[in-house]
């Protein structure tokens, strides 16, 4: 893996390998999570379908077909208190082009054109396109409730981080989307080009130089003045809060949000990763083996660490009637973890499983790409091997110390009130 700085806070990271049959690229652009999220969230989706060179959605799509079915994807992520606009590209490697085409570089150029050369008159974007994209983004926001597990998670975050930027939905709200205009979205685009932190990650057999030049040319006439992005880490004893909502469902969804004592994303990180894994990670974890297997309360019950914010979220799908039973047991299993009541086998299993999974990530271009792309806000990037070394150094005492700082903050229960139709 090599990195180079193309412009201020613009990093190009290249993993050159001929292991894969594809060229995979991710472009990530980070901005603070703030009130303007909607005006930016619309950009990746809008750019995904067109650019100045191929302004029409159908002709754009046909160009991708001709490029051997290259696919471009768009997304918006939340990492700590940053909103990340994400663009992805998968194209076949030039070795497999049937007519000796340079497919990968051409696709790369297309991807950059989507972001840097959209259809614009220099002041705004076309009104009809903005209207269409507003409808689509509104549907994306509204349809987030279709997946109840995801919905419950969002509601828990909304309550738990009501006074923090982290509580802001990465797409914004339907009202905010409705208020967008061709001019305001255009201004947001210029703002992103000038002020975001950017990382381009490429996993390909292509040499990085021509790609670096291409990226450099795109940034050459942009006046860069990147904004500082910081995430608030709240430590100390939280006052647990309970929030609930009812829907006509078959199964209730329980989400429990915990604060940890992490003061930044690296603080106690490897030990916290292991602690959370023993508590609610793999099949050897306490939540899986007790709440699911022993008590048969649910099909899933697991804990996840979001180190970019220093929080742990537990999710489970249960019957409403089992809510107290499940909550009590989850809290109980956490305190057992914090008291060091886990076997040496559990501990060893966790280390082995975590390291095995991390090392396996080098075998798919998507995972390599997201491994590095997710480090967009770090000054120095860590390789999977370096992280594995840190995990291997964790001992039982580190785990106990980390687990002891995990405190319950907010419980959200999406109740199934039994009015669902058969």
């Amino acid at each position, binding site marked *: 893996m090599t990195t180079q700085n193309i412009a201020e806070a613009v990093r190009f990271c290249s993993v050159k390998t001929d292991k894969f049959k*594809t060229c995979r690229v991710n472009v990530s652009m980070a901005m603070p999570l703030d009130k303007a999220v909607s005006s930016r969230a619309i950009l990746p989706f809008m750019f995904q379908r067109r650019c100045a060179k191929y302004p029409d959605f159908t002709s754009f799509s046909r160009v991708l*077909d001709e490029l051997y079915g290259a696919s471009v994807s768009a997304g918006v992520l939340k990492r700590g208190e940053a909103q990340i606009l994400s663009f992805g590209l998968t194209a076949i490697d030039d070795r497999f082009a049937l007519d000796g085409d340079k497919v990968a570089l051409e696709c790369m150029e297309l991807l950059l054109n989507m972001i840097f050369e959209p259809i614009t008159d220099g002041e705004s974007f076309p009104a009809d396109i903005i209207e269409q994209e507003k409808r689509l983004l509104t549907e994306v926001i509204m*349809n987030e409730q279709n997946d109840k597990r995801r919905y419950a998670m969002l509601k828990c975050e909304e309550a738990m981080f009501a006074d923090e930027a982290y509580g802001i939905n990465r797409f914004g709200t339907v009202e905010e989307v409705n208020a967008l205009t061709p001019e305001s979205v255009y201004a947001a685009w210029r703002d992103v080009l000038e002020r975001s932190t950017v990382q381009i990650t490429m996993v390909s057999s292509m040499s990085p130089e021509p790609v670096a030049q291409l990226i450099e040319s795109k940034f050459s006439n942009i006046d860069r003045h990147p904004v500082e992005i910081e995430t608030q880490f709240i430590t100390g004893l939280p006052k647990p809060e309970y929030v609930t909502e009812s829907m006509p469902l078959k199964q209730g969804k329980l989400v429990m949000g915990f604060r940890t004592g992490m003061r930044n994303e690296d603080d106690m990180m490897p030990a916290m990763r292991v602690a959370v894994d023993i508590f609610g990670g793999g099949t050897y974890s306490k939540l899986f083996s007790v709440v699911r297997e022993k008590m048969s309360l649910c099909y899933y019950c697991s804990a996840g660490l979001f180190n970019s914010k220093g929080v742990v979220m537990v999710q489970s799908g249960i019957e409403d009637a089992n809510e107290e039973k499940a909550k009590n047991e989850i809290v109980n299993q956490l305190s057992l973890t914090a008291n060091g009541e886990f076997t040496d086998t559990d501990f060893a299993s966790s280390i082995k499983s975590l390291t095995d999974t991390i090392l396996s990530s080098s075998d798919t271009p998507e995972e390599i790409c997201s491994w590095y792309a997710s480090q967009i806000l770090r000054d120095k990037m860590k390789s999977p091997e370096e992280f594995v070394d840190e995990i291997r150094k964790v001992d039982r005492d580190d785990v106990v110390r980390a687990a002891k700082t995990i405190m319950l903050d907010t419980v959200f229960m999406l109740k199934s009130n039994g009015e669902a139709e058969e």
Partner: protein
Amino acid sequence: MNIKEIKNELINERYFDIDHPSGLKILVMPKENYSSSYAIFATKYGSIDTMIQMKDGSFKEIPEGTAHFLEHKLFESEDLDAFERFAKTGASANAYTSFDRTGYLFSCSANFKKNLEILLDFVQNPYFTQATVEKEQGIIGQEIDMYKDAPDWEVMFNCLRTMYHNLPVRVDIAGTQESIAKISAETLYGCYDNFYNLHNMVLAVAGNVSVDEVIEAADKMLKPVDGKMAQRKVIEEPKEVIDSYVEEMLSVATPQFMFGFKESWDTPERTAKEEVTMEILLDMLSGPSSELYRRLFDEKLINNSFGFEYFTGFGYSCVLFAGESADPRRVADEIVEEIRSFRKNGFDAAAFERTKKKLYGRMIMGMNDVDGIANNMVVSYFAGEDIFTDFEIYKTVTLDDIAELFEKTLDERYSVLSVIKPN
């Protein structure tokens, strides 16, 4: 032992097809520069197998959801269960049940041989008791409920249930609360003996492995068995659908729909050529580059979730269009209208070439990941093909093939519109 090398020059890949003396087919694709490996041990037994053949040749019915239930329970044993054994090696283990197969799998970046031994061992050693079966009914009951709240799942099964009178593809993979209550340890042993015969199974491995180490593990762990392929019963199914429309209310923001066209064929399974031809046909008709897609988008009738699938398996085949729309009926009407227009005007030669190029690229992209490759080997083997078959076939498809297939499919008289409405 017969070991055959299967090669594809175009993409510079090869794998080994091994007839192990135990009766098991083993497929191995070594990937020298990979650090992980993936193995899947699968049986040709899925949710559509709701009948079991008795010694006298007759068929006996088994409860819906048994294949999936068995999959959950096979991880258990008298002492250490399979998850505990994999926890000691660090592998990630899992399993799945689909309409026509059950697969047990792991991926790992260390201890491959040990992991393969565990996999081969636990799948060959069932241990079911009434108590453990009852415990699982609670867990699977929650899994069934979870899917009942998932609109994309419900919209599909409502469509299939309205399309098919008799075929078990209409049945939920996990069964129902009522059907799983009928499952006993005895049911599971009966199904196990019938379907988990090495001759009815396949082991597929891809990644950082050698053929030798796979064979060594197989020699050690597999006991030869008498050959017996489980027979699938051909079930009679009328050409007609039960109804042309079905709806359900769920907590969704925008209505979801699935618009399906039932097909009728003389043979129970579709050939690779038919599948590839259909893939091209559907992409030309309704893919992102089509006129229809654009029209639906411009009319605000669909969003990014719109897509199609040629859904096939033993005894069934149908074309499914799905998405989210404020007006599913109009989307369905537009699709029907477009089919009529294609019937009148035919397919465009330039679009055909472009779509083939796209399909070729997408097949190449599918050859990166060890899990994708290994699963592809399983599916291809059960279908009587190899994983490179499609690379050869796509080249032979002509516009005439498209036109010929088009005659046999997408007949609106046999269509079902399934809608999930907001409650």
